[in-house]
């Protein structure tokens, strides 16, 4: 069975072509147009890359490509987390604020001139990291618990926790004598752990956080594909009632998805603080938008019960390729928002098309 499966995978293009050859003219046209539509996102991105590369040849230089990979790595953890929420047919709009909260917590314990806790020397980095993970996990638990037990829609729940988290960030930044100011001047250990040079390619630096992102991708792949929890997550996302009947602990699964997601957000905050080297109340703001868009582009559908880690990686990468390209073209940030919005809309529409029952 497994060999025939492999053979099938290898020949997917072959099979498509064989089928295509047997079709009549009308069906052929239909097959081509549906092939183009289903892959429209990739086609658009490909065209964009070509156009940008022609106008700005630097865009395809080694330095630029490494830069794209680095930024992809930085944005991966949050997308990996939010992907699980989408598999459950939910969403998580508190993600960005949780990134911010984690970054603020870690920064407050890792700056040399500490105004939040005056006199506090930078703590061993594991302490603030665990603290941030714990706080985010708690918020994630509140999210998951409310969704699972009160049967609230994740949108409503995370809208609420998003506000709560933002409030906490603002309050936290007012602690001590900080008075809401931006936190910077981090302990070199923290900065090196994240931003230190792992190796260089053609003069371009590949920092350590790329490695962390790779580790997280592998870890999440294992969790999604090789654990009971992962299988249960897909089952709950596909049919919650059937999962209940099958003896799956649905509530626990939902809560775990949100907690795991929150831990991913905290890791994003951990990376982003040192990467950007300064943290304020707006750190992480709107990160969930890019993450959700990346997931949808990568085939994690809001239909539920479907999606792959590889898809999320591709989604984040493709978005980064576009945005880096746009900045090479010196497109105004305001226009980039408009383009982002359009991309999300188109990606969702294309995705939904695959699941519609044709009448």
């Amino acid at each position, binding site marked *: *069975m497994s060999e025939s499966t492999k053979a099938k995978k290898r020949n997917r293009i072959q099979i498509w072509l064989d089928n295509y050859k047997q079709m009549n003219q009308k069906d052929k046209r239909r097959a081509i147009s549906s092939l183009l539509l289903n892959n429209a996102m990739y086609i658009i991105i490909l065209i964009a890359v070509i156009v940008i590369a022609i106008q700005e040849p630097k865009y395809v230089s080694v330095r630029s490509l490494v830069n794209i990979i680095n930024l992809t790595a930085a944005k991966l953890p949050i997308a990996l987390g939010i992907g699980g929420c989408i598999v459950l047919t939910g969403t998580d709009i508190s993600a960005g604020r949780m990134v911010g909260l984690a970054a603020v917590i870690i920064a407050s314990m890792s700056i040399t001139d500490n105004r939040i806790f005056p006199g506090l020397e930078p703590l061993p980095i594991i302490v603030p990291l665990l603290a941030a993970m714990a706080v985010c996990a708690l918020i994630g638990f509140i999210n998951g618990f409310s969704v699972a037990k009160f049967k609230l829609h994740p949108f409503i729940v995370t809208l609420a926790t998003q506000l709560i988290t933002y409030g906490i960030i603002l309050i936290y930044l007012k602690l001590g004598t900080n008075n809401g100011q931006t936190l910077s001047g981090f302990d070199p250990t923290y900065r090196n752990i994240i931003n230190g040079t792992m190796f260089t390619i053609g003069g371009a630096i590949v920092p350590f956080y790329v490695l962390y992102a790779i580790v997280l991708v592998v870890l999440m792949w294992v969790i999604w594909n090789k654990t*009971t929890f992962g299988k249960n997550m897909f089952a709950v996302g596909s049919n919650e009632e059937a999962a*209940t009947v099958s003896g799956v602990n649905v509530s626990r699964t939902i809560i775990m998805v949100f907690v795991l997601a929150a831990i991913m957000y905290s890791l994003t905050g951990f990376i982003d603080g040192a990467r950007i080297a300064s943290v304020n109340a707006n750190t992480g703001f709107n990160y969930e938008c890019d993450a959700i868009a990346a997931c949808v582009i990568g085939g994690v559908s809001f239909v539920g019960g479907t999606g792959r880690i590889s898809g999320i990686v591709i989604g984040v990468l493709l978005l980064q390729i576009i945005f880096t390209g746009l900045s090479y073209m010196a497109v105004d940030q305001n226009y980039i928002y408009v383009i982002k919005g359009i991309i999300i809309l188109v990606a969702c529409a294309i995705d939904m098309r695959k699941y519609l029952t044709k009448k």
Partner: protein
Amino acid sequence: MEPNQAKSNALGAAVGQKNTTVHDEVWKKAHPVVLEMKNITKAFPGVKALDGVSLNVRAGSVHALMGENGAGKSTLMKCLFGVYSKDDGTILFDGKEINFKNSKEALENGVAMVHQELNQALKRNVMDNIWLGRYPTRHGIVSEKEMYEGTKAVFDKLEIDVNPKTVMSTMPVAERQMVEIAKAVSFNSKVIVFDEPTSSLTEEEVEHLFKIINMLRDNNVAIIYISHKMDEILRISDEITVMRDGQWVATEVVEDMDMNKIIKLMVGRELTNRFPPKDNKVEKEVSLEVEGLSGLYSHLRDVTFNAHKGEILGVAGLDGAGRTELLETIFGYATRKDGTIKLHGKEVKINNPRQAVKNGFALLTEERRATGIFGILDIRNNTTIANLKNYTKMGILSDVQMKADTEWSINAMRIKTPNQQTKISTLSGGNQQKVILGRWLLTQPEILLLDEPTRGIDVGAKYEIYELISDLAKQGKTIMMVSSEMPELLGVCNRILVMSGGRLAGEVDADNTSQEEIMTLAAKYV
């Protein structure tokens, strides 16, 4: 308090009132046929749902439509209202041929239906619902006054005592049903279909409903009355049509019918060789004891029975008799109010499906789509989902084992599929059912609860499912099987529990009973 009193006073006159009309030729002449359905035929892929059915309904009469579940009553009505388009046959209304495209068109032409499940805008008030889709307007502004008065007028005519401004969701089902009837009347309907109207009414409410129906009849409205309840039918109707297996069986005036005759007409089909030999051996050992089981949110009341190892125990009953609720309450999927469940003499704690699975129970649900399959997932995931903990080593799932078990299930259940990665939603209903059955067998259950295991499955696949059930019993498993198809219960089961109105009405030996006996028991508490 006052409205209630007024209602019960009005009721007084109707209580006990019997239909004393003599339905002779004179009556027939005075009540000409207003709706004539001729040779209606409707086929679905693989099933002939209606096969040349005719129905003639007279003005100013109540025409009862009877038949087992799946006999084709609702299909016939759906053809009338344009929900389905008929393949063949004609419908004459007032002598003119009609082909309604939807129920709105039917309603506007004087043919209305009061559904068993009321489709109403519950958050809106009574008059909003009655005028929905045809709000009276003055210069583009909806006239609340007109709506109110129009509603009031109809209510007065029908002696319904409800404020038109009451919000629907605050009203009991009976009153909401009255609103539906009033809506039909406000369209000056000449034909009104009642689909199981009394299934959720109290006795007093039924009397009020009958009073209204009698009033409509006196106003020359033709009424089609679909119900399972014999005594009601015999009391209210003028003529009775019985259907079976999508075919017309008989139409008689009420004087020529009695309960036994109706039952015989309804179930009078022959048992053929549609079932494998019943050669499972029922062991002495009692495996499952259920005592005093009641549901908290369902009408399941005080059900006590036991089941043996190797036994196939059928559960019969009409729609809404509590069969599904019984299985779901045992399985912990529906909340239990009272009662104990013992497995091999020891009480087991089952508060949710998880605990049920742990204790060796399995439930094949009635709604395969809604609560059975994971449509978007492949066969392997669908097969292994209830048994994942057995494939886990140090927190990681073993693909090899999952593959092997899925392969076993595909072979053992004879599932027809290209491979394990095929999406379950692309399989036929019968194959999907086998996948779910295989899912449960992997958990090695002792008690299998099967709710309509062959619903929506073609005849060939049905036989295979029966064989699987029989094999499982031979392996010493205990099987409880709910079915609406009585021949299936008689052909497969050893013993049959008959449910009625949420209670256990009786228990019969499948080899020494008749469909008539089961039907009589099934009607015991309705």
